[in-house]
């Protein structure tokens, strides 16, 4: 994939049914899962360092059902991360999105709690993430202990980065650490999604919407029009309003 993609989930500018096309595979997977008997997760094997990616206990509780209160949402499932896992999770979230000027760190907007909610949910996508993330957090601690003699949360930024650098870049994941690379990539997209979907995150990215207005839709600002006109003309095309 030449450019990383900002994938859409249904959002204000969602096309009709756009989510359907994008979610099709997910949908079919869900349907298949509903129809097949729950197959036990395959054991994930051992890495070079001797670390075992143990399969965590799957969640068997109920979801929120097909008619939950939309005005007063609750998360009905119990949260399952241990204190130690949460500590590693928080440290990793903040490594991915540390505080930066006015932008708060991931932990300051509750991202670790969200990850806990996510991997504790009784749905297929979240269960798949659970099977990657829980052993992944244990891997972080094991790796930190063997390299720096302490759990991931306690070894300091430089040592944390040294571990992250081995697993955070596509095509450059250290041989033998592929599983940890998958774990990091998944944690990154969840952390980013959880972060930028808060109001603080909107501020950081610049999303100005979800604000009711009146009168006709104002459309692009004069500055935005000037800009797009310039882009269009630079490509040898003609700018025209409909």
């Amino acid at each position, binding site marked *: 994939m*030449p450019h*990383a993609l900002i994938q859409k989930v249904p*959002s204000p500018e969602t096309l009709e049914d756009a989510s*359907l096309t994008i979610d099709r595979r997910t949908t079919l997977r869900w349907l298949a899962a509903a129809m097949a008997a729950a197959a036990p997760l395959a054991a994930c094997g051992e890495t070079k360092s001797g670390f075992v990616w143990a399969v965590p206990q799957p969640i068997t509780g109920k979801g929120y059902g097909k008619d*939950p209160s*939309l005005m007063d949402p609750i998360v009905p499932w119990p949260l399952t991360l241990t204190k130690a896992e949460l500590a590693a999770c928080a440290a990793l979230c903040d490594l991915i999105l540390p505080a930066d000027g006015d932008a708060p760190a991931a932990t300051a907007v509750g991202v670790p709690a969200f990850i806990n909610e996510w991997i504790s949910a009784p749905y297929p996508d979240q269960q798949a993430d659970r099977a990657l993330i829980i052993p992944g957090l244990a891997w972080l601690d094991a790796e930190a202990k063997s390299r720096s003699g302490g759990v991931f949360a306690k070894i300091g930024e430089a040592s944390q980065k040294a571990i992250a650098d081995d697993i955070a870049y*596509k095509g450059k994941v250290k041989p033998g650490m592929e599983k940890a690379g998958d774990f990091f990539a998944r944690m990154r997209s969840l952390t980013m999604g959880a972060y930028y979907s808060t109001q603080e995150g909107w501020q950081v990215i610049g999303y100005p919407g979800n604000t009711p207005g009146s009168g006709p839709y104002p459309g692009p600002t004069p500055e935005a029009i000037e800009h797009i006109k310039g882009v269009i003309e630079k490509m040898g095309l003609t700018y025209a309003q409909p």
Partner: protein
Amino acid sequence: MSPGPASAIDFDEGEGLDWPDSRIRGEAMVTTADDKFDAVIVGSGAGGSMAAYMLTKAGARVLMLEAGRDYNPDEAPMLNLAKDAPLRGAGTPDKPFGYYDATIDGGWTIPDEPYSAAEGSEFIWWRTRMLGGRTNHWARNSFRMGPYDFKPYTRDGLGVDWPISYDDLSPWYDKTEKLIGVYGTNTGLENHPSSGPGVLLDPPKFRAPELFVKAGGDALGIPVVPARRAVLTRDMDKRQQCYWASPCGRGCSIGAAFQTTTSLIPWAKETGKLTIQTGAMVYEVLLDKSGKASGVRYVDKASGAHREAQGRVVVLAASTGETARILLNTKPNGRSEGLANSSGQVGRNLMDTVGSGFSAYFPSLEGRPIYNEDGAGGLHAYIPFWQYKEIAAGKIKTPRGYHMEIGGGFGEPGIGSFGGFDGYGAGLRGEVKKRYGARFGFTQRGEMIPNANCYAEIDGEQKDKFGIPTLKFHWKWSEHEYAQVEHFQNAVKELVDRLGGTLLNEVKPPAEAISTGGEIIHEVGTCRMGASAKESVTNSLNRTWDVDNLYLTDGSVFASKAHKNPTITILALSMRASDHIATRLRTGEL
């Protein structure tokens, strides 16, 4: 919720289908003046609500039976924050289009109300169980069918013609659009008819990326024009105009986005002539001795009791799949073919829209000035089909057209928005800023030609929790649809290329790129209308050929599935049919 209508009578569960008429109409029933409905309507979505509105306005007393629960769009979490919803509102099997999506008790599956697909077929079926049906969360895209779309067989020898022409429906499109409120413009493009003077509402302005794509389209002869959507851009009566925020799929409690629960249903209620019974799962049509419809039989979901409701005319609008299911499950005198099925066409000719899509990334849109692009919560621009002449001249392979629904920009960042990044920390933050608003999507919505491999039938082995036999779907796309996907892929590649962009999804072979049957949720055709009783289920006024006072007013009557999204046509056909029913009721013909 109002209690059940007084005319509904209990009868024992498990009674056979060949009930003696005396027990249906007889002594056991407590009859009061309130009992007699002029019309019984099944379903409160687009087709059913339009019928209820037209008939009550004409003075008829109407009973509407709806399988789902009561729903008031005040429940719609319009501006609520994703962070307050479980999983940031991500879709789950319980709520596939997200936590805040308006769908109630529905989705691709409904617990204890199964359906099946035949061996080798893939078909998925989106249902809701709520007052207003799927109109509470549809995308409101409302494109009229054109003259070619009603006479496809005449044009290319494929499929069948409708028994009506565009001119027959045109005045009803105008009336429907004026009533519900549709924004858009008259483009004058081939086979994209204009609305009457003063009918359309002003469309919202294009967003910057739409202007950008329009410039590319202009250079290539691909039209990028204002979309048409059933969304108010000015106040209409008690319904407020769009306030340019909140995803329309959550429902629109201010009434801007058309849904029957803020319009047709309350308007019909205001007449004092409408009785609504929710939680009423209809499973068969009742017939009197002369073979006329006398009402319907349903399960009252709250009590589990089986009841009957009676009227002078019966209108089925339970959606394309369910209407066929009710007819097939009704076995007058034990006849296995079902009701109104002397043509053998009930359940046949099932169609859905052809769908596929691309995301593209445009480096020249990086870092553009940010402003609010929420707009009307959906399409402002679209690409109508532009190559009818090339088809007629045999220059392109696809026999039928499609349109592209396009959009992207500074949307609300969500939990699924951040795949494909690399690294961490400050560098990552920078990438996010750079890419925000530089992605744009192109979605194909195309015409499918009916074929003998696509149909629904009763699954002889499965029943739902009420004991009602369920549907089994058969599905197979034909080479025509694959050719169309290929045309779309090439057109998008050309357009994206001219704009210096890159496709973010790989170009797959059409058979892999095409949507699953049912996935686009435009299923139509299971009881098609036609010119003769031999080849179709209803006449040109939605009346079944076999039963004089039985009407079908949902998408089941479509004879073809143009690339235009079906709902505006369902509404216009229902309005037209209901006008005719009202006349027959008034003159005592029914």
